[in-house]
């Protein structure tokens, strides 16, 4: 009986480790170098008059530590940090607070990066490969506490300047619709 319990526990640990390892290995490299295009059915909010209840947010392929960390590096390389700091903002809005002017859903953040926004967010459409935009989306969401705890970065590659995303990460992150269309 005791042995069975021990065996079950070991099995659980092994399975857990294997699953985590699978997650960590699920990395993809820069694929399509073409300009990012917008998903055709993109909405800024969740309200659709008379429509069904909004679906639960889908699991994202980028929701893993590798892609979020790639996003962290790209955030510096594409000069996002020059405007948004390390989440606190500056020329651009703060990203680590709970306010998402143009929506916090991955598709919203993706569209904001690709399309640009009228009050000063430049359009990066055609400048950043799609997969890298997705990695940026994953990192930007982690700044605002919208990444799972086990994938949110806990330290930057540079000197520590801001509260790391892991400090605000949630076990079950929720999303916020766009404030303005």
């Amino acid at each position: 009986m005791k042995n069975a319990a021990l065996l079950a526990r070991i099995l659980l640990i092994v399975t857990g480790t294997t699953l985590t390892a699978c997650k960590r290995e699920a990395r993809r490299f820069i694929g399509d170098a073409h300009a990012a295009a917008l998903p055709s059915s993109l909405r800024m909010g969740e309200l659709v008059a008379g429509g069904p209840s909004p679906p639960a947010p889908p699991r994202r392929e980028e929701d893993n530590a590798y892609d979020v960390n790639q996003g962290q590096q790209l955030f510096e390389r594409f000069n996002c940090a020059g405007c948004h700091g390390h989440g606190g903002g500056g020329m651009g809005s703060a990203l680590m607070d709970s306010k998402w002017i143009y929506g916090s859903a991955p598709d919203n953040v993706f569209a904001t990066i690709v399309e640009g926004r009228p009050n000063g967010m430049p359009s990066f459409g055609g400048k950043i490969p799609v997969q890298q935009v997705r990695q940026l989306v994953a990192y930007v969401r982690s700044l605002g506490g919208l990444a799972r705890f086990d994938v949110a970065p806990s330290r930057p590659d540079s000197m520590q300047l801001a509260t790391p995303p892991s400090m605000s990460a949630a076990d079950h992150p929720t999303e916020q619709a766009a404030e303005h269309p």
Partner: protein
Amino acid sequence: MRVIRRAVSFVALGLFVANVGCHGHTDTTASTAPARPIGPIAEPARPLADDGQWRMAAKDHANLRYSTLSEIDTGSVGSLRVAWTFSTGVLRGHEAPPLVVDNVMYVVTPFPNYLYALDLAKPGAPVEWKYDPGASPSAQGVACCDVVNRGAAYDDGRIYYNALDGQTIAVDASNGKEIWRAQLGNINKGETMTMAPLVIRGRVLVGNSGGEMGVRGWIAALEGRTGKIAWRAYSTGPDSDVLIGPSFRPFYAQNRGKDLGVQSWPPDKWKIGGGNAWGWLSYDPDLDLVYYGTGNPSPWNGAVRAGDNLWTSGIFARRPDTGEAIWFYQWTPHDQWDYDGINESLVLDVPWQGTRRKALLHADRNGYVYLLDRATGEVLSAETFVDVNTSKGVDLKTGRPIAAPEKEHAMGHVTRGQCPSASGGKDWQPSAFSPKTGLVYIPLQNLCSDEEPVEANYIAGTPYVGAHVRMYPAPNQRRGGLAAWDPVNARKVWSLAEEFPVWSGVLATEGGVVFYGTMDGWFKAVDARDGKQLWQFKVPSGIVGQPMTYRGPDGKQYVAIFSGVGGWAGAIVAGDLDPRDSSAALGFVGAMSDLPGKTTKGGTLFVFSP
């Protein structure tokens, strides 16, 4: 002599004790110097006539911000109360001074850069007209340090000012109708315009902003009647672009040579090298020279741009008719600390070693107050007005700062405790001069920073900085202050300490009063002689504007100031930035995380009278 000195220090001590006793939350520290310099004092180059108006941001071409109105004096200032107020409807940093011409007040707001005319002849000064330039909202994304505007200029029936999206505009002062607009800057390269124009003989001189975006700096002269460009002089590149010709005679050897705006850079880096003329211009009609400073070289990370990086972080003297350069002096060669050289230069005549020198007085970001010969660009004196460790003095033989190798940046290394921080000992916020005391009143900040240079990638229209920065209060100092500086003896006579950086301009008056504002919202009047606080009033939002004074249609003297926190220092409030990130607003948030608890945003003009 010893007796006099002792008496002087006794008086100073008395002032010090008196000040400590009665000053609420302002600290005054009198040094052992007298309240007024002994012997000859600095004077305006030309006599100051005053018609009770205010036609340009600095009031006059000499950048003195001094009014000969004296109804409000050290006695009557205590009875100042609000005469009327005006809400601009804009929430960002209000850095401009109002103008007053022929009983009309003109106020220009931050983006969207509304221009209002207020009728002073009617009770409550109602809006006579409003002009909206329709500036592009996208420009907000490339304005490095809040979407500010630093003022307009009046000349010959027209109001000239810049809109954030790179336009210079002429508006008919009588009816608010647009006369012309000139699109000078391109926001898609990160170019904006925030400075206050200066008009010289009917020509409007303006410059661009964008040193944090790799924008190549320039100054341009536009014909006041048409807006056509008469000349444009760049701050980097070949001599033909910089308008350097046979008349160019810089005082120091390192600034002589061919195409130094190319040679002092690695290949092609000058094309994205900054040096923007976003600050103050002054003009001396006797020498017929216009003076202005150039901004920091881009990027902040100096590792990618070996050399002196001419003609950035320095000062040019030019002929206003042709733009040709006459002399140049570089405050900070190969700047690595974001020490823009754009602060105001006051045109003063100063007794100097037995002669009267035509001089410029300039308190720079790098922490030194310079006295220059304004005919030649020779440095007469350079002394610190805040704690400085990024250099060890200025060598008066070569004109160069003495290097402090331990504070120079290196890739892969964090430089800690560099003072002053990127904001400098003093930023754009302009000082004032009083011929009654011979003193210059300098608003300042005491901040230091940690910096880590990182790879800078140039993507046009995005930040080109290449540095991680975190600012914080200088050790054992309060973050702001006002210093009274004696140009003759190159020393501080007295100073006041404030909790936050003094990001407002200063006004000095014949009544012996000096006005300034604080970021937590106090508008203050102090005695020009000793800094003793005479009056204060709490406005709703922190002050980053420029105080001015005028004579109303009723013959009474008024004082006006914007309430409306923002600017680089106040971006944490104006832009809703997050205090948990000390690198936000290019590092300024690190030093200002408590400001949101002390003030909220909102633009309101306050006008006071006795």
